[in-house]
């Protein structure tokens, strides 16, 4: 090999030009010196946390600074995106919070003074300890995010005694996705849902022939490992794509990619039209529907419920389980499914149940009847997608099935009817038979790990569990992810008063619907603690800010959960020392535990960690590994190998889990049917949202106004490939600046047509207001584009500061203008799921005077 270095090449030139001293002298036995390796680097295996997805990566460290992040190719889908490549810009951001801070101004003002760790921790601990001694631990809420001390943080707060560990997923993946998926595939208990969110399944892009992207642009590169990678490999293998989106994203491809510029808020209309076309053209496989789904289930149209069921025993994985058997029609009359030979998929039948004659229909017949009116012409008028394009899409799905998919969306809490959209996507994928198939949609694997802290179970239910029982408008609330319902609990002081928020990494003000009301709730609290290395809207309200280390600066617990079909096990190792006085999260939790819980509790749960460090956690996790096949378990390497950076991956299984009572993919969701009947009988205003039949529940913006006025728009968002959820790692990042500027990523984008009508041109400053909350005004630069649908006002999510931009004064490299829809929305919930309707409102736009 020809061994060369740029240092050789440049000789002494560098020092001369810079007028600086010559670099560090190299010892005589130095072998090869290149920009890749000066012989002083170390390589550390990390899991990238520039977004939440922990893509396995390798950090190169020079003089205790990470200087490069690249994919860990020791895993089958090794890949990182641009965010990872620029992680250094976030970690060594000069504006990072690096000392504990204590508030000096009003909440929201963003005025703080520096404090020592002892002062800050003592202040926090005293408050928490007092409340615990008063027996009011439940009034303390813990709001964690991925940056918290995984493996011990939740255990600590449970030990402390609060049931309120409040996830943020209700704004993202935790509300409509679990209901829309779980009602068809099982795995959730209706009422108190905590089931499969974004992590449940993956599209098998790599081998797919055709796919529909909606509500998520896989190319946006979040979940680069494996989704971004498999999507690219799919394209390389000839996969064709249609994008259903009011704005054409470049990330899905720029040449020969079909685009259906849908009107914002009408995704359900499109999906209903697609279902209708699939039914009319018989683009389904009869044998598949009879075998795998409950399409042949006989339903009583009066009640919407199965006309007759019975419980039978079946053997499953060596265990006897109860299965719900249901009546079907056959050539020789009706029979229970378990006894029936060939069943009827369509038709109307009369059945005698307990001496009463009931006219019933097959589930598929009822779905077809319900769908009949959602013709391609209906889609054209409602969703503004041409009928011919819809027909083409349906045909392409049919030609490709089962090697095709309809994406399920991401950060997909957008409209009142988001649950309906998720349900329709699941039903369509099930009807097309793509689940568990090569090129279709498959189950993700995960490695389940042992628990480091086993805190005693709490008697008291959390706020969401109370809501399930007592709030008739939120029976489908997710009992793990309910941060906006928690805000409502603060405002209403129901079911009990909330006094302290311990917010770790979450940005509830910038990241969820109804920011104004949320800030009012925060102001009601006695104490707010934020743990964060980055400034955001929420830190402005903190009484104490504890600066934690970033992922590159700390060891983390083992990780066994990725959004990958391959069960994967890996760990993030510390690459460089925390900046300034910031401390790693495990240290912070340990210090709080020392100060708050009793010495006996501390010894029992933290003693070993305190003495031995992370290894105490890793060993417990490793010893408890389960949830993978025996063959896979046998291939797990020793803990030392994992700690040394090896990322283990299991096998790819073409399978899908189905946990319904009937054991079938319930394209007619019986659990919803029951709830629908109950709500309807009770006269509930939102009952139609859980109608088990394919019906069109409208988004609030569509129901309110079919046609927008000249100055009215529906705000839509998408991820910039270098942006993230609340943008904390990317907003002030100098490695991304050039590309953000080239893309005018802080602008709002509207159609050229609408812009011209308003007399606007590129770069004009506009004011954006939600007429229902006129006191909140955003100022942004506008860009006119032919790639945005007329009704839409597009902005990149989490890129610009928005209306509540006080935090931006702490960021040297960040504009204070721009638009964040969350700052403008009212504090409202999606019906029944208590979801986060983030784009379900109208804004007015005018040129800034």
């Amino acid at each position: 090999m020809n061994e060369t270095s740029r240092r050789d090449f440049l000789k002494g030139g560098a020092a001369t030009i810079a007028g600086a001293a010559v670099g560090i002298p190299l010892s005589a036995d130095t072998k090869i010196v290149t920009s890749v390796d000066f012989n002083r680097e170390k390589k550390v295996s990390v899991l990238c946390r520039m977004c939440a997805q922990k893509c396995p990566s390798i950090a190169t460290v020079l003089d205790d600074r990470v200087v490069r992040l690249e994919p860990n190719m020791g895993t089958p889908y090794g890949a990182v995106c641009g965010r990872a490549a620029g992680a250094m810009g976030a970690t060594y951001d000069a504006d990072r919070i690096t000392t504990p801070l204590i508030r000096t101004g009003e909440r929201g003002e963003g005025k703080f003074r520096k404090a020592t760790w002892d002062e800050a921790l003592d202040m926090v601990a005293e408050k928490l300890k007092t409340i615990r001694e008063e027996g009011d631990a439940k009034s303390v809420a813990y709001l964690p995010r991925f940056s918290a001390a995984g493996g011990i943080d939740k255990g600590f707060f449970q030990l402390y005694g609060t049931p309120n560990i409040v996830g943020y997923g209700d704004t993202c993946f935790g509300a409509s996705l679990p209901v829309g998926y779980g009602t068809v595939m099982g795995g959730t208990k209706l009422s108190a849902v905590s089931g499969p969110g974004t992590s449940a399944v993956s599209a098998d892009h790599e081998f797919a022939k055709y796919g529909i992207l909606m509500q998520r642009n896989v190319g946006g590169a979040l979940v680069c490992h494996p989704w971004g990678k498999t999507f690219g490999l799919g394209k390389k293998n000839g996969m064709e794509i249609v994008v259903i989106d009011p704005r054409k994203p470049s990330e899905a491809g720029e040449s020969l990619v079909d685009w259906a510029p849908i009107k914002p808020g009408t995704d359900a209309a499109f999906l209903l039209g697609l279902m209708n076309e699939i039914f009319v053209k018989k683009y389904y496989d009869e044998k598949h529907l009879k075998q795998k789904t409950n399409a042949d289930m006989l339903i009583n149209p009066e009640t919407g419920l199965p006309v007759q069921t019975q419980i039978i025993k079946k053997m499953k994985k060596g265990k006897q389980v109860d299965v719900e058997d249901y009546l079907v029609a056959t050539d020789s009359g009706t029979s229970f499914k378990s006894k029936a030979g060939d069943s009827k998929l369509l038709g109307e039948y009369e059945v005698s149940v307990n001496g009463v004659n009931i006219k019933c229909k097959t589930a598929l017949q009822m779905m077809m009847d319900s769908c009949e009116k959602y013709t391609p012409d209906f889609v054209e008028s409602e969703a503004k997608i041409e009928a011919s394009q819809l027909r083409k899409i349906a045909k392409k799905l049919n030609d490709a099935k089962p090697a095709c998919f309809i994406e399920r969306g991401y950060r997909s809490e957008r409209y009142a009817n988001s649950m309906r959209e998720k349900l329709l996507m699941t039903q369509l994928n099930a009807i097309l038979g793509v689940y568990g198939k090569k090129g279709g949609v498959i189950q993700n694997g995960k490695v389940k790990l042992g628990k480091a802290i086993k805190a005693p179970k709490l008697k008291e239910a959390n706020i969401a569990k109370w809501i399930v029982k007592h709030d008739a408008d939120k029976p489908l609330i997710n009992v793990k992810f309910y941060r906006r319902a928690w805000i409502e609990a603060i405002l209403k002081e129901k079911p009990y008063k909330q006094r302290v928020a311990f917010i770790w990494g979450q940005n509830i003000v910038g990241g969820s619907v109804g920011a104004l009301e949320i800030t009012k709730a925060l102001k009601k609290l006695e104490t707010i603690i934020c743990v964060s290395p980055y400034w955001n809207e929420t830190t402005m309200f903190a009484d104490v800010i504890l600066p934690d280390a970033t992922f590159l600066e700390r060891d983390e617990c083992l990780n066994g959960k990725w959004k990958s079909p391959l069960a994967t096990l890996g760990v993030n190792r510390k690459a460089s020392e925390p900046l300034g006085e910031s401390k790693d999260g495990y240290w912070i939790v340990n210090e709080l535990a020392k100060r708050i819980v009793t010495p006996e509790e501390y010894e029992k749960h933290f003693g070993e960690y305190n003495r031995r460090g992370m290894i105490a956690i890793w060993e417990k996790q490793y010893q408890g590994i389960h949830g993978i096949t025996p063959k896979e378990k046998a291939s797990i390497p020793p803990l030392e190998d994992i700690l040394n950076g090896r990322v283990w991956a299991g096998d790819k299984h073409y399978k899908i889990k189905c946990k319904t009572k009937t054991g079938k993919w319930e394209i007619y969701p019986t659990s919803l049917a029951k709830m629908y009947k109950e709500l309807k009988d009770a006269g509930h205003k939102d009952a139609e949202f859980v109608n088990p039949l394919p019906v069109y529940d409208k988004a609030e913006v569509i129901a309110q106004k079919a046609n927008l006025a000249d100055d009215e728009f529906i705000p839509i968002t998408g991820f910039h490939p270098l942006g993230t959820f609340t943008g904390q790692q990317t907003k002030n990042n100098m490695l991304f600046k050039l590309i953000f500027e080239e893309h005018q990523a802080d602008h709002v984008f509207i159609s050229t047509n609408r812009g011209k009508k308003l007399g606007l041109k590129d770069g004009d400053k506009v004011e954006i207001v939600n007429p229902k909350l006129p006191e909140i005004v955003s100022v942004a630069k506008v860009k006119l584009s032919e790639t945005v649908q007329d009704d839409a006002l597009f902005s990149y999510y989490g890129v610009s500061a928005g209306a509540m931009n006080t935090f931006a004064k702490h960021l040297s490299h960040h504009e204070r203008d721009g638009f964040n829809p969350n700052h403008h929305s009212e504090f409202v919930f999606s019906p029944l799921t208590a979801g986060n309707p983030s784009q379900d409102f109208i804004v007015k736009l005018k040129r800034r005077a």
Partner: protein
Amino acid sequence: MSVNMKCYDTTPCIRCFACMVGCSAENRLRLQRDDYIGVEKSDQEKMPQTYHLTPKRKEFGTFPDSRQVTAFHHCNHCEKAPCLDICPVDAIIRRPGGEVVIDHEPCIGCSSCVDACPFDVPVITDGKAYKCHGCYDRVENGLKPSCVNVCPTEAMFSGTKEEVLKEAYKRASLYTKVTGKEHIVYGADKVNDYVGSLLWVTIIPKEDLDAYQLDTDPERTVMEARNFAKSAGAVGAAAIVVGSVGHLIYWIGKRKEKVQNEEQNHG
């Protein structure tokens, strides 16, 4: 040593910009190592000169037959590199692997390469010209160029010219079959007499050559001053050797005058 080639395939690209950020990060590291910048500055300034691969996004068509296209702007490591020919101080050389590289020691920041490059690639910052060097230091040590290294989807790939062309033609023919639109490997064959073939090739639908801003006839009038520049170049180089700054300035002034005259004649 065999000739190295890089390929950008527009089809699997997810426009995540890992290549561009990765390129800048690697060049920041080089500057840091070579003591141009300290470790602090390395992550805290924009430093456009460290991005040797930049996006040029343009919008095409009218709604709904519209789209944005992100052209990749970078050095093509031309077979007949005009920058290399015109450089008055011979600061631009070709590595054994074919990479066209600017040596910052002799470079005087005179902009000759900027004028000669038909793809508008070199940028001048603080008196030095910057452009892609093909990560020759990495490649000559058995590693992939930085942009290829971080690409998540194999949209960027590299290797010997033979390997890369074989894969590129295979992909192009699959895309042609699947989409019914002819896909080509731009730069694999001679583009024109001015640049010859390229060592950074691109797989695109043929109809999208313009959209991706890939020039089928890259030219620069300045090269008509080529003979002058070449001979003047020797003078320039001599100027550095003897350290005669006055002489150098005189030469640059004369050269600019000549170029302006040429451009006026063609304008």
